[in-house]
């Protein structure tokens, strides 16, 4: 690709970008949110039409007007959001649009056979008759990959393939991609996780603000080097954390249990306490009860048993409003489907959950002026990039949306902040900013309950770390005395500490590190 330029109204998404991929390599495309990575790939795949530039394939000038052209050249794309029909079977999803038929009669057996072959070639089994909606996210992604291979693609584009996967699923994706490479396929993958680049890629291209910063062989670069190229300045990959100065106990939660509708314990008899100025981290593979624990703790869901005391007042199963009034803030893990309303303005989102507070409303009416003033101050303070506070939140970038949520929760000066995946899917610069702000809260004596599936994040922010597995704490660690590897072992459930000891340590009855 030479000199690719793509303009959107008000944005220069790609500014004469040159990009080349060699046959048989794994090429990583990295950059912050909004750097133009996905746009460039959508131009290559024919979803966007380019404004300027040329595309060459096998040294031949080609014109790619739509995805069909790309498919004919052997280019396939696995999108970030899967494009599958959930109620249909695997084979029907994969063959959809390129069905094998004889005189108008579908040959599903032939399709199934080819799918099994394709799958075993790259190292996994799949049941072609399974219904897609019953399958996990990881398997769905494999189906997407098979869909591309079924169309005989030689070049595979994967847009942030690991964003939705658990660590184990990431491992097996790595294997699949390596196998594909051995078969001579060419792979381009978009990511902003630098670990993945180092693990997997042969070469890496960095983009920033629509321009290409450079392409490097993997052996001639490092994570820090890439991070600097991405943001154009030095970044702290580990957060500066001052010595912990824990104060009084803020929250004490004992024997918490959450049941689902079928009566199964999703959170099983969990106890912990958090003190002022302390970060309590919960590490775990997603889907092990973290979401349920946090949603019950913040008044969205309910505990079926157990008690929550905040500074000696009982707040078990209090509603969201009461908890906010008691000074408990919540950064939810799902930014778009919990944390904000994208069709609301920045200001309206800034008061979400706090709109009943006296400073933002009286008995009937909202105090629009105060709302706006506070939102403007926060936009300033938290460096949220938005044309105005009246802009709809949907037109903000992911990182700025997250900053808006963080700004909202921190502006209310909570005693205790529950932060779930506070930096998921945002770029390095915004991650750094959020981390710094969270550490400032800790330094000023606030308590923090941090849930994250990023072990780096848990390790660098937390003081004490609990590992959650199948709804239970299976280990308690002091962050200075553990390693990612050790946590990983507990996260997969292959090891667990004595139950009583975990409980005692989580409740802080024994001072750690002695």
């Amino acid at each position, binding site marked *: 690709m030479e000199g690719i330029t793509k303009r959107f109204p008000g944005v220069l998404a790609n500014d004469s970008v040159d990009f080349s991929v060699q046959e048989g390599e794994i090429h990583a495309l990295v950059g912050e949110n909004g750097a133009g990575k996905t746009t460039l790939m959508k131009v290559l795949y024919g979803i966007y039409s380019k404004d300027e530039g040329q595309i060459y394939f096998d040294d031949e000038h080609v014109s790619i007007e739509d995805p069909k052209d790309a498919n004919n050249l052997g280019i396939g794309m696995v999108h970030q959001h899967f494009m599958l029909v959930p109620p249909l079977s695997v084979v029907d999803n994969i063959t959809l649009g390129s069905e094998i038929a004889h005189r108008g009669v579908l040959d599903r057996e032939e399709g199934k056979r080819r799918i099994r072959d394709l799958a075993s070639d790259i190292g996994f089994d799949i049941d072609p008759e399974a219904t897609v909606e019953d399958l996990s996210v990881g398997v769905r992604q494999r189906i997407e990959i098979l869909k591309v291979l079924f169309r005989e693609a030689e070049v595979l584009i994967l847009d942030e393939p690991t964003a939705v996967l658990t660590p184990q699923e990431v491992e097996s994706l790595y294997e699949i991609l390596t196998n594909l490479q051995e078969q001579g396929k060419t792979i381009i993958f978009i990511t902003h996780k630098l670990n993945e680049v180092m693990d997997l890629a042969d070469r890496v291209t960095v983009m920033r603000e629509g321009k290409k910063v450079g392409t490097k062989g993997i052996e001639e670069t490092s994570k820090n080097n890439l991070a600097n190229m991405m943001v154009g300045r030095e970044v702290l990959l580990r957060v500066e954390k001052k010595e912990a100065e824990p104060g009084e106990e803020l929250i004490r939660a004992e024997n918490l249990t959450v049941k689902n509708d079928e009566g199964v314990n999703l959170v099983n008899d969990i106890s912990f306490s958090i003190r002022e100025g302390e970060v309590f981290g919960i590490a775990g593979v997603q889907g092990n009860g973290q979401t349920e624990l946090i949603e019950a703790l913040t008044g969205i869901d309910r505990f079926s048993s157990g008690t929550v005391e905040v500074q000696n007042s009982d707040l078990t199963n209090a509603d*969201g409003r009461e908890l906010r009034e008691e000074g408990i803030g919540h950064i939810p893990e799902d930014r778009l489907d919990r944390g904000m309303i*994208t069709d609301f303005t920045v200001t309206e989102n800034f008061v979400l959950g706090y709109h009943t507070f006296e400073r933002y409303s009286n008995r009937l009416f909202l105090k629009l002026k105060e709302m706006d003033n506070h939102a403007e101050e926060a936009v300033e303070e938290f460096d949220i990039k938005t044309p105005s506070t009246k802009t709809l939140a949907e037109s903000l970038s992911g990182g700025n949306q997250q900053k808006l949520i963080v700004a909202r929760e921190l502006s209310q000066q909570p005693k205790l902040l529950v932060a779930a995946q506070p930096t998921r899917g945002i770029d390095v610069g915004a991650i750094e900013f959020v981390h710094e702000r969270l550490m400032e809260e800790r330094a000023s004596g606030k308590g923090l309950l941090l849930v994250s599936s990023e072990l780096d994040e848990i390790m660098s922010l937390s003081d004490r770390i609990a590992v959650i597995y199948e709804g239970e704490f299976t280990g308690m660690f002091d962050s200075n005395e553990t390693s990612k590897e050790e946590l990983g072992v507990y996260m997969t459930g292959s090891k667990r500490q004595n139950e009583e000891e975990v409980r005692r340590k989580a409740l802080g009855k024994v001072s750690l590190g002695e």
Partner: protein
Amino acid sequence: MNSESRRDLLFNVLMNGAAPLVAILIAFAIGGIVITSLGTNPFAFFSRMFSLNFGSMRGVSQMIYRATPYFFTAMSLSFAFKAGLFNIGAEGQMFIGGLALAWVGFTFTWLPFPILFVLCLVAGFLGGALWGAIPGYLKVKRGAHEVITTIMMNFIAIAMVQYLVQNHFMNPDWGIPHTPTVAKGAYAPSLDKIIPWFPTGTRANIMFLVAIILAGLTLVLLRRTKLGYEIRATGLNPNSAEYAGIDISSRTVMTMAISGGFAGMATANFILGPGSHYFLKSEYGGIGFSGIAVGLLGRNNPLGIILAAILFGFLENGALGVQLYFPNVPRQIVEIMQAIILIVLVIVLELARKFLQRLQKRG
């Protein structure tokens, strides 16, 4: 103005301005073809229709009279829409509200104006609100989709109203089933009593102004009050509303109740306004359903809804008058045109959306 806001403006003009206008023009064109096929000159037909509505203040006044009930049922649709609910039950809510307000009007006959008048409106609102709240409650408690339940509630309402009027309120000597007449204290003043230069002797009445005031109050409610904020939040993203500690169940029921309440007041125009002063079911059929079309045509925006309601009033009033001049064109031509407007509108909106998407892709 930056290009982003220019695009937003283009979006607004296309979706909210151009699309409805195109739909209306196409409806007139197709209506014209039908009229031509009946052997009548469509230009003569439409220009007569136009002069009947706009040729005199009396015409305007009659048009407003016909437009008023659509205004209410369209507001009913739009209000629910703002909260992400599709209330197809305006028809039934209108009947229940209508019977309730007539009942108050012919029962508490000793009460003076304006007390009885206001009480009638409250009864109409409450009747419709009750009928709207039931599907809201079923949605919240049992997960029943409001589109299905509101449609079903329409049939129940129609049958129930018919039964009550025929078996309880009607004097068997009357030829057609209707309720007793409401007392004088319930009469809605005609517009000429309020606006001095308005022509006397037409049926346009204060309910048109009531509708405008309610539309304004609705805007204030949605934009400036805590309740409105919560209603919008619930409609736009129930998960985030739940996160924010909003009781989405109560907000859903309340939205459906307010939406139903608007529909419940629609027939006050006929029952309390100048005219027969009784509840006559056969006169109101379809106004609730047409409200869906008016609401969509008005793009759920108060000003748009007024204009759309007036268009429907224009067509209806015109159809009644134009029959004298063109007896071979059935008045149902208007219903055909109303339907065409809706169908074409949906198509045009979809095309406009596609066009804007392509524009965005091109950049």
